[in-house]
């Protein structure tokens, strides 16, 4: 029997991987692990190939029993983790046997821990991915978050065995600063906002509200003014309305001017609110580790800086892989 027995599902634990590409034009977002860095490192630690499905935990962790010998790793947000009530290392290769129970204490920093198990979570792939999209109940484990008493299939455990006790160096783990910086390419429909308000947008800290989930994060902190205009045909009369258009993942829309929404992995793919910029892909990892009450700031960057941030993350992942080989 190779399953995970879910004693307690946690607040919102879902099966995720690198995401489901190629269906955005049908309104199907990619989903996938929100903090890709932590997710990828978790897979490295257990010897999984890139792209194996793992568990994304939100705020409150699950309690899980194993039914056979496996490698396990927990990365991402900080929370004390135990196996059979004994504290274990995070960001480290662990081994478990049948009957062992992995459990979480309260989070102390960040928002989303990741749990990788050697062999990966063995749910069926749907449209090329095992990621869960709960809005329409698609992919993952029955299209939903884990519940108490679920039995989750595991994949075949014939992976390249990692070195037990391998640990990711502190400097290669994410940090959780008091105000998270989100590098942002300003643009899209930012012409709808006055110059003064766009300055305010990048200067004030924004607080994550309780409406913060995998679809998007709603923020509060400033108040943006719209430029007066003659309403274009089909846009709608509200100052924030534009003719409905595609929303990039990471794009920031401003309905009402005072409640920006950053769209994330389960994004609505299109709509009729003015978008004012896009958080660069790498910094979706950062916002994924903020929670209600935390603060973020938008730092304007250009395309070169966004591409450089991508290279940096790839190099960090490679350095992590190297450090585990030693």
């Amino acid at each position, binding site marked *: 029997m190779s399953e995970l027995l879910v004693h307690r599902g946690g607040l919102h634990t879902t099966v995720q991987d690198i995401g489901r590409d190629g269906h955005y034009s*049908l309104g199907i977002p990619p989903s996938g692990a929100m903090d890709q860095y932590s997710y990828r490192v978790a897979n490295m630690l257990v010897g999984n190939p890139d792209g194996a499905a793992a568990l994304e935990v939100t705020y409150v962790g699950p309690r899980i029993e194993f039914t056979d010998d496996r490698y396990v790793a927990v990365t991402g947000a900080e929370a004390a983790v135990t196996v059979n009530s004994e504290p274990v290392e995070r960001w480290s290769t662990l081994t478990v046997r049948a009957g062992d129970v992995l459990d979480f204490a309260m989070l102390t920093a960040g928002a989303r821990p990741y749990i990788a198990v050697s062999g990966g979570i063995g749910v069926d792939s749907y449209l090329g991915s095992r990621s869960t999209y709960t*809005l329409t109940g698609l992919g993952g484990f029955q299209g939903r978050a884990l519940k108490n008493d679920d039995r989750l299939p595991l994949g075949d455990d014939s992976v390249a065995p990692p070195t037990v006790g391998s640990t990711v160096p502190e400097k290669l783990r994410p940090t959780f600063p008091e105000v998270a910086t989100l590098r942002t390419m300003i643009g899209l429909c930012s012409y709808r906002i006055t110059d003064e308000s766009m300055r305010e947008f990048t200067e004030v800290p924004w607080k994550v509200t309780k409406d913060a989930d995998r679809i998007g994060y709603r923020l509060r902190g400033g108040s943006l003014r719209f430029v007066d205009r003659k309403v274009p045909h*089909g846009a709608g009369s509200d100052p924030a309305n534009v003719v409905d258009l595609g929303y*990039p993942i990471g794009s920031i829309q401003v309905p009402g001017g005072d409640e920006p929404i950053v769209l994330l992995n389960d994004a609505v793919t299109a709509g009729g609110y003015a978008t004012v910029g*896009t958080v660069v892909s790498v910094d979706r990892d950062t916002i994924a580790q903020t929670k209600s009450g935390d603060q973020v700031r938008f730092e304007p960057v250009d*395309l070169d800086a*966004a591409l450089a941030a991508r290279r940096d993350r790839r190099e960090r992942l490679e350095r992590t892989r190297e450090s585990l080989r030693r």
Partner: protein
Amino acid sequence: MATTSVELPRARYDYGGDEFIFVELDEAMSLEANFKAMAITSVLREENIEGVIDICPSNASYLIRIDPDRVHPAELVAHLESLEQTVQPLAEDKTLHTRLVDVPVLYNDPWTHETLMRFRDRHQDPEASDLEYAARINGFGTVSQLIDALSGAPFLVTMIGFVPGLPFCYQMVPRDRQIEVPKYVRPRTDTPERAFGYGGAFAVVYPVRGAGGYQLFGLAPAPVFDLTQSLADFRDSIVFPRPGDILRYRSIDQTEFDAVRAEVEKGTFHYRIREYEFSPAHFLADPDGVNVELLEVLYR
């Protein structure tokens, strides 16, 4: 050359972070802008460019999702700019291969009526129903005249999105005959699955139950989204509508609604579909004449 009523401005190109390119063909909605979006994106699909992940035609714009490790965003923008010049959807010989589809709608149905009555405090006109309000502000004497106008001319699917399978549809009539309504003052927290809604100049069918801000005009008995893929029209995709489809939101009565529902429940329902070579230039030169032909082909 076809005489066009809308001259498109130069397109505006922008990056949506490192993974998206957004191209705004016009700030205002027009069939011309949508034909351009559709034509450029269909050329792009055929080109099959390495690193292009998603190609999303939108109402008066389009969005491309890329892997910037495989294609440089700036190089792709340069290519898109050249397509803007070379792709001329309104040339006389250009056609779009599309589907004409009959989409039955029970306008003024009891279910959406029940829903909209629960949210009158969020509406522009709490004393009227959504249809009564829309008829009044669009200059129709009665609700049935509005329904005749909606049911009378087909709609072009100008974008799919928001949630899986939701078609944004723009009626194929000149701008002075477009029906326009505002969205709710505050969005509803509930909308029935398959509700036929209208906001701005766009008609939609809600694929799933949920929040919504569009005016509620009716209910479609057949789905646009089917995760179980049990109906024949969903064999290849959980989403039925495609950009460029031409949908006729035909007004039906309760008897036909019940009959279609029964077919859907049994799994035997399929949409009436006709393949069609659509000429944007021909259409813009004579919209009413082409609409007569479209309906003639659809019900032949």
